[in-house]
């Protein structure tokens, strides 16, 4: 059993996002990048599969800011191999192109399962798991919260609306978009990541010159027009608390 986990770096949306001069991308120069949180979930689920079935886990990322940290982090957590696809350029990479690059690499790799995050904060032209599954002609299932691989098939739990969860059986190979792993992603210490870094075990592979246009024109990015905004309560913790208690009282939700 071989499980491949594509991981992706996304701008940390806790930060302020400034736009480039032409307004079609975020200014990446001073941005902090983090691993897509759902890819962390996919990696955790892959590691759980490894623990229960002895699968090999291969993590793959495109050459994006801070991706080394993510790849070495995955090795430190227990991934068997880490691959970096280099030469993909800078700036926002559409999902269509990203999936074409990964599909080209996957074709020469051999695998039973591809687990990746169900979505990412900069998905504008579709989600990677679905794009990959469709490109590879494989069954694909998104919003998944558990994967149990058994021989040539997997049992997959998929979330529908309102918290309903169904179980599906899918023939392998298959591509899974992971919403949440069966357990919280494991913690790995900085010293373990450093150890992994010293091993220098990330393989660099030139990315395929894959086509992958979105088919649309991104006119511009803009900050949402705020149709409404909260009235901000000013002052220190005590003053703000006082105001909030007044609001709750005025609503008749506490006596007084």
């Amino acid at each position, binding site marked *: 059993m071989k499980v491949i986990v594509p991981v992706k770096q996304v701008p940390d*949306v*806790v930060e302020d*996002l400034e736009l480039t001069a032409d307004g079609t991308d*975020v200014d990446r120069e001073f941005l902090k990048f983090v691993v897509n949180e759902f890819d962390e*979930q996919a990696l955790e689920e892959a590691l759980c599969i490894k623990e229960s079935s002895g699968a090999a886990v291969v993590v793959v990322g495109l050459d994006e800011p801070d991706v080394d940290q993510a790849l070495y982090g995955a090795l430190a957590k227990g991934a068997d191999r880490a691959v970096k696809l280099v030469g993909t350029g800078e700036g926002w990479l559409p*999902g269509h192109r990203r999936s074409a690059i990964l599909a080209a690499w996957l074709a020469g790799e051999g695998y039973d399962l591809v687990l990746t995050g*169900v*979505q990412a*904060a*900069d*998905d*504008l*032209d*579709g*989600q990677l798991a*679905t*794009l990959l599954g*469709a490109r590879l002609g494989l*069954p*694909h*299932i*998104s*919003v998944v919260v558990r994967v149990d691989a058994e021989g040539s098939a997997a049992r997959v739990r*998929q*979330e*529908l*609306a309102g918290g309903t969860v*169904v*179980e*599906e*059986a*899918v*023939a392998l190979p*298959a591509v899974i978009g992971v919403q949440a792993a069966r*357990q919280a992603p494991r913690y790995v210490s900085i010293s373990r990541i450093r150890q992994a870094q010293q091993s220098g075990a990330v393989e660099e592979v030139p990315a395929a010159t894959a086509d992958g246009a*979105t*088919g*649309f024109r*991104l*006119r*511009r*990015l*803009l*900050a*949402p027009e705020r149709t409404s*905004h*909260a*009235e*901000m*309560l000013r002052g220190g*913790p*005590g003053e*703000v*608390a*006082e*105001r*909030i208690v007044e609001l*709750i009282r005025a*609503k008749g*939700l506490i006596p007084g």
Partner: protein
Amino acid sequence: MSNDVLVLAEHQGGALCTVTFELAGRARELADAWGGQVQVALLGASNLAGQLGSADVVFTAEHPALADYNPEAYERVLLSIVHARTPRLVLLSTATAGLDLSAALSVGWDAPVVSSVVGLSAEGEGALATAQIYGGKLLAEVELAGSRAVCAVIAGSFPAAAGRRDRPPAVEAIDAAAVLDGLRTSVTGVVTAEAGDVDITAADVLVSVGRGIGSRDDLEVAEELADALGAPLAGSRPLTDQGWLPKSRQVGKSGVTVKPKLYLALGISGAPEHVEGMRDAELVIACNTDAKAPIFDVAHYGTTVDLFDLVPELVKRLKP
């Protein structure tokens, strides 16, 4: 090609989802602007076709593989429909089916796809889609000028009333048997959810926590406030995924929708998936150190005071 707009009907538990009416209503506007028809694909629930009066035609398909939602079966039938009917635009929601299918239609039908759409209008022969990106912190305006496109629309973006019309649409049954041969995915059962300890949808007051809570121990601070208000503790997805709160306490797209009289949001950023589940609360008071957090767009009152400074002050004033 045509000027038609095709909507994928979503249904669960024998009823059409509200978002389907939202999409049908916007499809009507676009089809009228382009001079085309509104078409709805209704798979495995032909009996609901009569409710889709805003459509000109409803394509129904019945097959054992469509009895439950099966992503592979849906993909194959939808692809056969779009190849045969060549609509100008296909609309899905961003719920599970949309995540499974919208990008697959893009690849399989060679059409651009836009995810997380919140606005959509005709622009001459084409369309302009406005989509959320970076967790709703920015919007992207996307021009769809070609003869085909797919949009995955966030629920609540368009009024549902526009999609409800009291007249029977034409119904056309599709024979899906041929395309459903040799499926590799099958639905084997429903996982019974653990019974929730508290029904948070019934509470007048909810104290709800998000990622601003950094550890399980930190949760005690919020619990104390919830106790002081006699309110259950709810939360956003990251907290239930961590196992810090039971799944029954999760508010949002993949949890429950709540409409309490007071929703106290602590350390919640206001991602679209969360807001979908609480935006109709009567009074929303939000506490988040990030002044630009989207939660302040839905909250009535807000503060950037650190929740760990604010909550003890609240508890002090609320405890008898």
